[in-house]
């Protein structure tokens, strides 16, 4: 090594503890690199805290308890436009429905990929297909959804007028959104199952249990933390999606039911979620009520935060489980 530009730091004879960088002795280029890494790291912290603090301040400024219990309304001022009860309920409704499809399906695919996976080409194809779904823009999935749910055969799931099917309902949106969550669920389930060592399975087979029983009674309970993590992350992804909601749920302010059966009418009708509420109340949207948009964004961010922390806690609990 060439002599550094500044006075070389005296090297201690003992091996230095890692992270105790004596960077004064480095070449200039390396020190610039390190400085750049520090700079960008600190910049990242600054941007992050700026975003979080800004949203917190705006949220605390604009969130009122009554917003959570008032229906939204069309209007020109903050007073007239009401709260976001419907979008909030819609968020949970569409999220739960989508996870109701994605979780069992993701479990089945994850178990099949990890425990069965035959024939091999089918497993390979399934793997790449799941990855492709993860990379597919949600707006493309939404367009595909319109093709499916506007077909007359599925007219009973949404509003139809004189044979023309609108294809916009909670059913349509949740079904397509389940594809958004599917890759996350499958990945978590597989990860959980693959972390279980083979001898656990062998012990179960040795006492005469079938593969199906082993999976149901031993493997899935052991992988439960991963499954829950996947479900939470998937839920977070679903409630954060906007494009599918705009195209397949109609993004109306209030629930607009179809038919007279109490719950079914809502599910067959159009509605909105917090994301579309924010989208429409941003200055670029039709509502243009920024204060309401900030309040809704704050609530949505808190939801995502809770889901993330939940996934973290559950995931850590899963890692505490050790097979010796």
């Amino acid at each position, binding site marked *: 090594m060439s002599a550094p530009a500044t006075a070389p730091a005296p090297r201690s004879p003992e091996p230095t503890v890692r992270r105790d960088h004596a960077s004064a002795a480095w070449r200039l280029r390396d020190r610039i690199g390190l400085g750049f*890494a520090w700079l960008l790291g600190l910049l990242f912290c600054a941007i992050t805290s700026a*975003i979080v603090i800004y949203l917190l301040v705006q949220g605390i400024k604009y969130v009122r308890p009554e917003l959570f219990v008032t229906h939204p309304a069309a209007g020109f001022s903050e007073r007239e436009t009401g709260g976001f009860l419907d979008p909030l309920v819609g968020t949970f409704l569409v999220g739960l429905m989508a996870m109701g499809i994605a979780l069992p399906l993701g479990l089945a695919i994850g178990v099949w990929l990890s425990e069965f996976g035959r024939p091999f080409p089918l497993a390979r194809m399934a793997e790449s297909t799941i990855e492709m779904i*993860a990379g597919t823009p949600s707006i493309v999935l939404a367009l595909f959804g319109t093709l499916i749910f506007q077909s007359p055969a599925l007219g009973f799931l949404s509003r139809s007028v004189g044979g023309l099917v609108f294809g916009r309902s909670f059913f349509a949106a949740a079904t397509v959104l389940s594809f958004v969550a599917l890759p996350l669920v499958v990945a978590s389930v597989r990860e959980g199952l693959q972390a279980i060592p083979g001898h656990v399975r062998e012990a179960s087979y040795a006492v005469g249990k079938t593969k199906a029983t082993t999976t149901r009674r031993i493997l899935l309970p052991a992988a439960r933390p991963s499954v829950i993590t996947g479900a939470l992350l998937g839920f977070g992804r679903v409630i954060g999606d906007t494009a599918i909601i705009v195209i397949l749920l109609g993004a109306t302010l209030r629930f607009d039911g179809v038919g007279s059966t109490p719950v079914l009418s809502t599910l067959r009708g159009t509605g909105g979620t917090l994301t579309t509420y924010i989208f429409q109340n941003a200055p670029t949207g039709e509502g243009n009520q920024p204060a309401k948009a900030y309040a809704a964004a704050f609530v949505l961010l808190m939801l995502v935060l809770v889901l993330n922390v939940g996934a973290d806690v559950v995931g850590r609990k899963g890692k505490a489980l050790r097979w010796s």
Partner: protein
Amino acid sequence: MDATPPSRLFALRGSDQRAELMLGALVFGVLAVVAAMLVFVFQEAWPSFSHNGLHWFGSGGSVDRQIEAIFTSGDLKRRPVYTFHAWPLLWSTLLITGLAVLIAFVSSLFVAVFIVEFAPDWMRAVLEPVVRLLASVPSVIYGLLGVLVVVPFIGNHLISEHSKASVAYIVSLSGYSLLAAVVILTVMIAPIMIAVFVNGLRAVPRSWLEGSLALGINEWRTFWKIGVRTARPVLVAGTVLGVARALGEAIMLAMVSGSVGFAPNPGDGLIFFVEPSRPLAATILQNAEELASPPMRHTLFAIAAVLLFSAAMLSFTGWVVKQPMKRYGVRA
């Protein structure tokens, strides 16, 4: 995983076979749905492509006026119009995605190296959950911040009245711009890339790094030459994720990019960065109300087909690149 279940008891094997068949059928069902998606999207897109040929990707005329003509020709009494030259939309997508991914890649790499190797422990303990949180913030929230904070800032402080006047007869500069889109998109995809990079860099075998350190090479150079180089497949995989997210981003870009079918011209000098445009995905979103008009539907599906094809190519690239990483037991 490799253990074979007991095969002597045929009665028990039956239930296994049933389970395998049922699960396999579900998997096959999902594959069939995805295959149907590919077929349907390209089938719906075909009229637009076949009418325009390769000119679909070219430039010519105002793309917004073409879209309007396509939509109004959906009326049953008229002949459908399909003329569509998507170059401004493609160019906008390429520019926004390319610039954002480029900036995000460089900064994510440095931040990931910082987090894995050089950050103090307390900072790392804070940063890692925060990165994961930022990666899962809904894009509409970034869009809202863009519209209410970044766009007014650019409009009021970075664009002079003189430059606004100089192009006023072509396009209005109001802050909804390439720059706003790139900035917000960078902030949006960087956490995704950082999260993947951190996982990959951490999986580099410790002994390789220690071997280099033992030769007296300093930490920075060791990590850069051995850590980052070993993790190259993960870097590509993370970048692929970022690009996929950027390409498909419709909501946020529809909010901040300006929503004008205009191709920003690098020849305009610095004004280039504050010119509005509209990428492909945002175009679909904004015209989604007009799906009932058949030529419009075919055109929008053609845009979707382009996006779908790019996404498929990206995930294929990611899959190819990820293969060597399996040796280290890393799944990114």
